[in-house]
């Protein structure tokens, strides 16, 4: 056991997928196997790390042995563990889905190419994500978000279709601009503080350069997170990517920038309530606008993508509560919502992909119980919808509960109303495809036995199932989350 304890699981969570990516790039034919194996290893590392953290509190590794201001520290506290866990969970299942989506059994050169490149890109993405969750240095985070962004763009355009390419370019510009705003913020922060670690910067919070740096970072990260009104790139990018890629983009990639924003907000800048209000209002706009667009759109994947815009907005309501008495509860709720959204949205994209694959289209108006109905995928979609709407016992419910509880404790009823509106909206737009799944008065053939079962239905189903019942484990998740008091020592 002691040998295990001495192993640097923290660094391994970043290095394992990295080495996996290298290997899968070197041996393209074996890419799926290598990819999946290294994913498993990474998951193991995360589990070991989590065990360490749960047993002994936050784990900190000083890379190179130098220590914070000079060198880089990696740190895994409760929040980091939760994010890592979320990433691994979604990642494992999406990978399972990808095994089928890009399986060798499918025809076509395009598919073969996608199979080759999906794995290295995804593993590199994973390594960036994991790196971001354990980083404590803002420049290191800059590099991480670049890794994430480039890999994500690679995944976006993996299908090679023109609309995906165009969406990917738009995403690229948004992402680069976001990163450059971030870089400028790093420059200003260094100018002011002369160091880059969180703890060192926190001492300088509130000074003018830090203020500007914060503004740039906030906007840059909001751009990457697609927070309204900076969401313009998202729907097309997520809707035009292949199903596993969409699942990763929507489930994981957005969460990274949101997580960074959250970290900065709590640990470094601690801005005042007015800025919180601004972000909250942006979130409100996202809820309304995303929902309205989701109600209008004609295509299933676009609907799911717009729903992401709305859901991200809802999570951002927590920022408005950051300096109130309900802050800790609201943060916990926000993190739970992030996890719930990651799991459910990944399931939903995978399911939408399966549906499109089986029915040959993804027009909402034409969805019905055809003789080739992908029942399990539709079921998974419905389960995921339960979590996104926030019905018990899903994690979405637990998250929404805590978020609203925070708002109530703060006496900020407006945010309760926003959360309620978001819920109602999500019912309205998600019921569109759900109703389609259940109608069979137009089916040309008599409805018979189940069809369209496939192994590929398992990952979305499992993810959706986890999303739908994980609210029951909310107290455990929060228990982990509070390790190291990431949201500060609130009473």
């Amino acid at each position, binding site marked *: 056991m002691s040998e295990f304890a001495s192993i640097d699981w923290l660094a391994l969570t970043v290095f394992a997928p*990295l080495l996996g990516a*290298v290997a899968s790039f070197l041996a393209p034919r074996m890419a799926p196997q290598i990819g999946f194996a290294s994913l498993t290893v990474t998951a193991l590392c995360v589990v070991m790390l989590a065990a360490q953290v749960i047993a002994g509190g936050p784990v900190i590794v000083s890379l190179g042995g130098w220590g914070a201001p000079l060198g880089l520290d990696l740190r895994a506290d409760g929040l980091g563990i939760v994010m890592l866990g979320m990433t691994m969970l979604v990642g494992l299942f999406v990978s399972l889905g990808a095994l089928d989506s890009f399986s060798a059994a499918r025809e076509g050169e395009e598919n073969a190419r996608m199979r080759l490149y999906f794995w290295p890109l995804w593993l*590199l993405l994973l*390594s*960036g994500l994991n*790196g971001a969750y354990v980083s404590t240095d803002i420049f290191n985070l800059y590099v991480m978000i670049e890794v994430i962004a480039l890999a994500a*763009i690679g995944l976006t355009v993996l299908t090679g279709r023109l609309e995906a390419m165009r969406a990917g370019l738009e995403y690229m510009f948004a992402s680069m601009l976001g990163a450059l705003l971030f870089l400028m913020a790093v420059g200003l922060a260094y100018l*002011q503080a*002369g160091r880059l670690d969180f703890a060192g910067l926190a001492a300088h919070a509130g000074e*003018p350069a830090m203020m500007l740096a914060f503004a740039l970072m906030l906007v840059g990260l909001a751009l990457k997170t697609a927070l309204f009104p900076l969401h313009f790139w998202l729907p097309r990018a997520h809707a035009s990517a292949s199903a596993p890629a969409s699942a990763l983009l929507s489930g994981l990639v957005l969460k990274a920038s949101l997580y960074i924003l959250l970290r900065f907000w709590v640990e470094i800048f601690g801005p005042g309530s007015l800025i919180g209000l601004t972000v909250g209002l942006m979130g409100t706009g996202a809820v309304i606008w995303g929902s309205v667009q989701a109600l209008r759109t004609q295509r299933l994947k676009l609907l799911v993508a717009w729903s992401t815009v709305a859901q991200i907005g809802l999570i951002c309501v927590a920022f408005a509560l950051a300096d109130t008495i309900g802050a800790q509860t609201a943060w916990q709720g926000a993190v739970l919502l992030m996890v719930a959204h990651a799991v459910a949205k990944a399931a939903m994209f995978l399911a939408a992909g399966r549906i499109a694959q089986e029915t040959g289209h993804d027009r909402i108006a034409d969805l019905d119980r055809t003789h080739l109905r992908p029942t399990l995928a539709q079921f998974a979609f419905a389960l995921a919808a339960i979590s996104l709407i926030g019905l018990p016992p899903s994690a979405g419910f637990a998250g929404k509960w805590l978020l609203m509880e925070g708002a109530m404790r703060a006496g900020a009823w407006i945010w309760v109303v926003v959360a309620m509106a978001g819920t109602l909206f999500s019912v309205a737009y998600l019921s569109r495809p759900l109703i389609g799944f259940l109608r069979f008065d137009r089916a040309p053939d008599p409805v018979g036995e189940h069809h369209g079962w496939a192994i590929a239905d398992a990952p979305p189903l499992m993810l959706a199932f986890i999303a739908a019942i994980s609210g029951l484990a909310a107290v455990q998740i929060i228990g982990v989350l509070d390790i190291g008091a990431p949201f500060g020592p609130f009473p």
Partner: protein
Amino acid sequence: MIDALVLFDLVLALAIIGIAAGVLILRDAFAMIVCFVIFGLLSALAWVRLAAPDVALAEAAIGTGVTGALLLKTLAHLRGRTLSPPLRVKGGLVVNAALCALVTLAGIGVFLATPIGGAGLEGLVAQNLAASGVAHPVTAVLLNFRAFDTLMEVVVLLVAVVAVWSMERGIARAPAPVMGEVYAGFARLVLPAAVIVGAYLLWIGAIAPGGAFQGGAVLAAVGLMLLITRAYTPLPAHRGAARIVFVIGTALFAAVALFVAQGGRATFEYPAAHAKSLILIIEAVVTISIAATLAALFHGREPVAVSVRETRA
């Protein structure tokens, strides 16, 4: 009293700003790229003035050189397409301009309100330089103090090449640049020299300005020339080797970082005795990877797809 050097700085700054504006304003695409290259070089010059020769070198080699080559290649690919007039005065444009001006003003205000050189890590770096295994502080930071950043930066390059390979395929060949015999001859002449310069830069990085990236950039330039002159044509058979070269830097760097983490040492904590040699090995390998990657980014596609298409055509 205004120092002559300060005057030079002022003029240089104004030139940089003007040329930056030119990048946006000039209608002709080629002129735009040229303008950008000049901008890069002037920036590098400015950075030399700011006592940052390493950075200047890197900017000149990579930020300007490689990027310029990439831009020109893209322009060649897009040739025949007229660039839309860059700036049309519309309501939105004016609003954008006003907003950006305000942001800039705010930035300048904040910058002026912040003391320069007040805080930094040079003291810590100097303290620990001896223990780092290299004499040049920038290299120490890059390959020891913040080696993780550097590793991830190589990873970024790797991501880029994977992404580019994944997306660029089956493109009918853009007409090759017309390069005369003179150019080919020049290339042949310059090649060995460039290799030597690159290697030197790498070596010198340990004690003076220079290092893996700069050296890599120079080596990449060699690759570029080979590609342009068709002295070397990537073949499907070379793919395996190419992949190995791309990843070897990352792989070795990461492997070393993990390997040293035993006996109570943290990841990236090189044993004091072997620090210099380890760093040198890493740097050398990373240089090769960088060079190959940059060249591949320039070439822009995986050999196999092209060859398949071309044989069919």
